[in-house]
Structures are given as structure tokens and as C-alpha cells.
């Protein structure tokens, strides 16, 4: 195990740091999960793309830099260290794109990836339905063959679709074989949200942003070229995407290291105020959260080392999802303890903690609840019986 960065990696870090310091928007952009904020975030994504920082790990032909996993992690560390904005393209670049690279046709990759990376076309995911949440295989929305037009007609309802009210396109699973049950007979479709028959209703989230949406589909036509992977094989294709969501690509350690650094700063400020007398144990909580962020960083480097040796991540990604989502809650809870009676404020410099806490509370729920993840760990990592 070698924990030193190569000269190339250090140079990559320096280049990223310099560009980010010069270009990260100040003051920070408003939330990208509001309509006005979303437009500003798209401009930022375009700037990232033009400087070839949007998708560093992708091949150059799609706007990337062919960066290694380690360099991607370094970029993420620098991005959050510099206070870079949330990535409103993340569902496309981190969730759909890995699936396109694995299952897409060359035509699909050429057509979709560059526009995704530049935020000309933004993507949301259509997994959950009113009766298919943690039990995702219970999907009811259906796809009926339309041979005359060489495509499919989709009907049904998707829900909890993040940024669905602002995005251009949706990727999701639909039941293409009504006779098949559960994980079988599902197909992965790429849907134009501007198409006839689509209705999108924004839903306000806990934190007040209209970041959620319900998407209603009524006989929506999707051409064959927008089927991803094989017909009826959608479950297998989709699992590749949720694998990346739970694992490395969605929540890299950089953001938690940055949050832990801000938490330590907040602690020092309050320690200087003498404001900690009433709650001396909060110090331990700060330290533990900081160590956990560091532990996440080293666990990730360890995993990346193994991946670079040619191994794949499997159900271990569930351990990672549990860890970062619960760490994120702890980091923010601790900050709110430090803020004391000012914790309720959502304006001013410290308001970001309450806002961030409300967002962190979604972590143990989305991408498969942590209860489901613990089952996955027990059954597929430890080998305990399903029932």
C-alpha cells in the first residue's frame, strides 16, 4: 500500500485547486433545488464543462480528462474544499452515465453524454412509485409495445423525483412484460419530459425547496433508441446504477471532509466565545465526527486501491452508503448543538447548517433506506439467510 500521491496527481490537484479558487461563485449560489437557483447552477455546470472539470473521469471525447479514480477523488476533495456548489447534474453524470458506459450503445453515448456533461440536457431519475419505494421491484408503471412507431408507450406515476420539475429528461424502470413478476419483465427507458402525455407536479420538500416532483405519464411515446440495455432486462441494468449511487460516485469523501473542517472552525469560534460551558461534551462529538470523515477518506482510498487492482465493488457499497449518510447527519447535528439557541436560524452565515441538516436527514432514506442497506450487508456481505 502506497499512500503518497504521484507527481502527476499532485500536479492535477494543484491545477484543480487554482481553477476552483479563481472560479467558484462568490457568494455561494442559491439552492439548485429551486427554479431560479437551478438556472444559475446550469450556468456554473457549463463553466465547469468548458474548463473540462465537469466530468474528469470520463473519456476526453465526451468532455472528460480520462482521469483515474484517484484523480477523481482528488478533484472531489478540491471541489468541496473550495466550497463548490452542489452538482445539479449529478443524477446524470454519476448515476445514469456509468450505466450508459456499461450498457449503452455507441449512438446513445455520443448523443447523450456530452449534452449531459454540459448541462444542456439535465436528467432526473424515475425509480420510486407511490407503492414501490424500498420495495422497488413492486413497480407498476407500464410500457406497452408500439410496433407501428418502433417504440413503446409508457403510462403510470413516478414520485420523489429530485429536481423533476426543472429537468429535461428522466431515466427509469417500467414494466414491459405484464406477465412477469417482481424483478423480471422491467425495461430501462430514457424519457423526454417535454413529450406529449407527461405531467410534472412539483412537491415541496422538508427544507422548503420544491426539489421533489411527481411525474405522471399517460401513453407517452418513447422510441426504441431510448431503451437502455435489453428489453425486459431493466432490473439488472438499473442495479448497476444504484450500485454507483450507494458507493463511490455519489458522495465522495471530499464533501464530508470539508464539512468536518467547517465544523472544527465553528467549534473554535464558540470555544473562543466561552460558549461551550453549558455543553462540554460537544467537543467529543466534534472530534468523533472529524475522525469519521477521515476514516471515510481512508476507507475510500483503500477501496480505490482495490478497484485499481481490478476488483469490483459489490454489496460492500451498502456499508459505504450507511456510513456517509449517518456521518452527514452527525456532522450537522453537532453543528446545531454548537449553535445552541441560534440553531433555528436559516438566514445568515450559519443558516447553512440548519439547511444542510434538513438535507442530511434525507440521506438515510434515499438510494435505499439504511434499514434495507443493513439487510443487504447482513445477507450479501456476511452471508446471513434471507428468511
Amino acid at each position: 500500500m502506497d499512500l503518497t500521491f504521484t507527481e502527476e496527481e499532485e500536479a492535477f490537484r494543484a491545477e484543480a485547486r487554482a481553477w476552483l479558487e479563481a472560479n467558484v461563485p462568490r457568494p455561494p449560489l442559491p439552492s439548485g433545488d429551486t427554479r431560479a437557483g437551478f438556472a444559475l447552477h446550469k450556468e456554473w455546470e457549463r463553466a465547469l464543462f468548458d474548463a473540462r472539470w465537469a466530468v474528469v473521469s470520463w473519456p476526453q471525447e465526451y468532455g472528460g480528462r480520462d482521469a483515474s479514480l484517484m484523480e477523481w477523488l482528488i478533484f472531489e476533495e478540491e471541489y468541496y474544499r473550495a466550497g463548490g456548489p452542489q452538482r445539479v447534474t449529478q443524477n446524470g453524470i454519476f448515476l445514469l452515465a456509468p450505466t450508459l458506459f456499461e450498457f449503452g450503445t455507441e449512438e446513445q453515448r455520443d448523443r447523450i453524454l456530452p449534452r449531459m456533461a454540459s448541462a444542456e440536457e439535465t436528467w432526473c431519475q424515475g425509480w420510486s412509485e407511490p407503492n414501490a419505494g424500498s420495495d422497488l421491484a413492486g413497480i407498476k408503471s407500464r410500457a406497452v409495445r408500439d410496433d407501428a412507431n418502433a417504440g413503446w408507450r409508457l403510462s403510470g406515476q413516478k414520485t420523489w423525483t429530485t429536481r423533476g420539475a426543472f429537468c429535461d429528461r428522466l431515466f427509469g424502470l417500467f414494466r414491459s412484460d405484464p406477465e412477469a413478476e417482481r424483478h423480471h419483465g422491467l425495461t430501462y427507458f430514457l424519457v423526454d419530459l417535454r413529450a406529449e402525455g407527461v405531467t410534472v407536479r412539483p412537491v415541496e420538500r422538508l427544507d422548503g425547496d420544491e426539489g421533489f416532483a411527481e411525474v405522471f405519464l399517460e401513453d407517452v411515446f418513447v422510441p426504441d433508441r431510448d431503451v437502455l440495455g435489453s428489453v425486459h432486462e431493466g432490473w439488472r441494468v438499473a442495479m448497476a446504477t444504484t450500485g454507483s449511487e450507494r458507493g463511490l460516485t455519489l458522495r465522495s469523501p471530499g464533501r464530508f471532509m470539508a464539512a468536518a473542517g467547517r465544523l472544527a472552525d465553528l467549534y473554535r469560534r464558540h470555544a473562543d466565545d466561552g460558549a461551550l460551558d453549558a455543553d462540554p461534551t460537544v467537543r467529543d462529538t466534534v472530534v468523533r465526527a472529524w475522525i469519521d470523515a477521515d476514516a471515510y477518506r481512508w476507507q475510500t482510498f483503500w477501496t480505490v486501491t482495490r478497484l485499481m487492482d481490478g476488483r469490483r465493488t459489490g454489496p460492500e457499497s451498502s456499508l459505504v452508503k450507511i456510513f456517509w449518510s449517518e456521518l452527514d447527519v452527525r456532522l450537522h447535528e453537532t453543528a446545531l448543538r454548537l449553535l445552541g439557541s441560534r440553531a433555528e436560524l436559516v438566514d445568515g452565515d450559519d443558516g447553512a447548517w440548519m439547511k444542510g441538516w434538513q438535507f442530511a436527514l434525507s440521506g438515510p432514506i434515499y438510494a435505499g433506506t439504511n434499514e434495507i442497506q443493513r439487510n443487504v450487508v447482513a445477507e450479501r456481505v456476511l452471508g446471513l439467510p434471507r428468511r
Partner: protein
Amino acid sequence: MRDAVRSFLEKECPPKVVRDAWTNDTGRSGLWTRLGELGVLGVLAPEAHGGFGGDELDLVLLLEETGRAALPEPVVEHAAVGVPVLEDSRAEAAAAGDVTITVAPPSGLVPYADSSDLVLDGDRFVEPRTLELRRHESVDGSRRLFAVAAPHTSINSASLDRAALGVAAQLIGLADHMLAMTVEYAKERRQFGVPIGSFQAVKHHLADVALALEFSRPLVYRAAWSVAHGDDGRSVHVAMAKARASEAALRAGRVALQVHGAIGYTTEYDLHLWMKRAWALAATWGDAAWHDARVGRAILDTDPAREEQ
């Protein structure tokens, strides 16, 4: 080499050997010289002194195995702390296992002093007979402890780092073994007509142990790397590793006992041998709170000198 040590210990240090160490005269396994032959005891000694010429990364991988087997020996004291600083004519004998070194930790409770040839007390090696020793009983019956009556000199920070690192590696091995034996038990043991491992309450307990291990083991490897390379942050890195490894092992023991139920509460069953070792090692060389406080001083009391790496 790790694999060789693992299979050696699986064969030669089964639970019966650990159990016998509770009642024999030394508290030890009888495997000491063979561990020397395998290169475990001299892993950090230069090849010129008959050692393996390895670094702390090699060391922690081997110590993890000694923890997995609950090997009853002062192997951390000897191989991690004593051998690297013993430079006189006895160095070769120490690497070979012909000499046993133990160490006086900050608690002043010296393990296996009665069967050791040298005690590292602060910066000097002394013979146990020159010290006034008073026997203490550990909750782990194989750990023969002796309080140093005379005031001992304080341990230097390099030794403290190596000892805490070595113990952290053993704690990882202990936790891993307790998790594995508990998973096996939960697959076999049936109640209500099904294996108890099919119940979510049991699954989630065990998943939490896997989680604690997954995120403490890399801290141990990173700390080993930092010590081996003289990284400026090495003491803080060791502190993080010992703190989280201690907690992982305590949690593994707690869950193992709960999942086993009453059988785990007996001394006829082997679990207690591992669990009590974990209790002892989680507390010695600084418990989680003590090491967390060290980290806190480094990251909160210095000006925003946040570590970059």
C-alpha cells in the same frame, strides 16, 4: 507471510491453547520460539540482526492475525515496541524469540513480566528481577499483569505510538473473529423454526459490527503507513486508529454476546476468551476517549492547521 501466519495460528493456536493459558504457569501459548522462526517476532528487526526487515505495515497485518487467534503472548510489547529499540547484543536473540521483551505501559501494569527477560521501562531495558512487581489479575485470565511498584519513567512517544498501533491491529483481528463466529452461530441456531440470523434485529446488529470494522481497519493501515514513513501526523493517526479499533472490538464483543444469548454467557463456550481480551486491549495503551482527546488537541486547539493529508 500474513497467510502463513494465519494458517500457523489456525493450526497451532486453537481456542484450547488460549483457554489453557488461563490456567498454566505463564499465561502463554508455548509457541514463542516458533513465532520467532516464522519471523513474527523480528518483523521490524533488520535482516542483519536476523529479522524480517519489514515495516509497520507488515507488522499490523501480522498482529491482526495474532488478534484473530487471541494468541496469548506479549507479541505487541515484544515485536512492535521492544525489538525496534533494542540495539545491543541481545537484538538477534530477541528477533529469534530466544529473549522475551515486555513493556511498562502508562498504566504501570506490565503484562507477562514474570516470564520475560527484559522490561522496557521508559527508555531503558531492565531485568524484571530488578523491579518491585506486584501481581494483578486481569479480566482476561491469560494476561498475567504486574504493577511496577517503583515509579517508572514515562514511555516515549515513539513507543507509545507503536504499542497503540499494535494493539489496534490486534483489536481488529479480535473483532473480525468475533463477527465471523457470531455469523456462523446465527446461521446455525434455529428458533421459531428458522435460523436466528434471518431476523432483521439480529442482522442489523451484525451489520453494525461490519460497519465499525470496515471504517476502522483503514485507519489502522493508514497509521501504520504514517509510523513507517515518519509522517508528522503519525501520533494523531495512531490515536484515531486505536480509538476506533477499540470501539469496533467492544461493539463486536457486545453484539456477539447478545446474538449468542445464554450460551455466550458461559465460560464453557469460547466467545468469552476473545471478548475479555477485547475488553483488556480496548482499555490498555489509552482507551477510545483518551485517544479521541489526543486527536481533539491536535485538530481543535491548534490554529486552523487542518491536516491536508
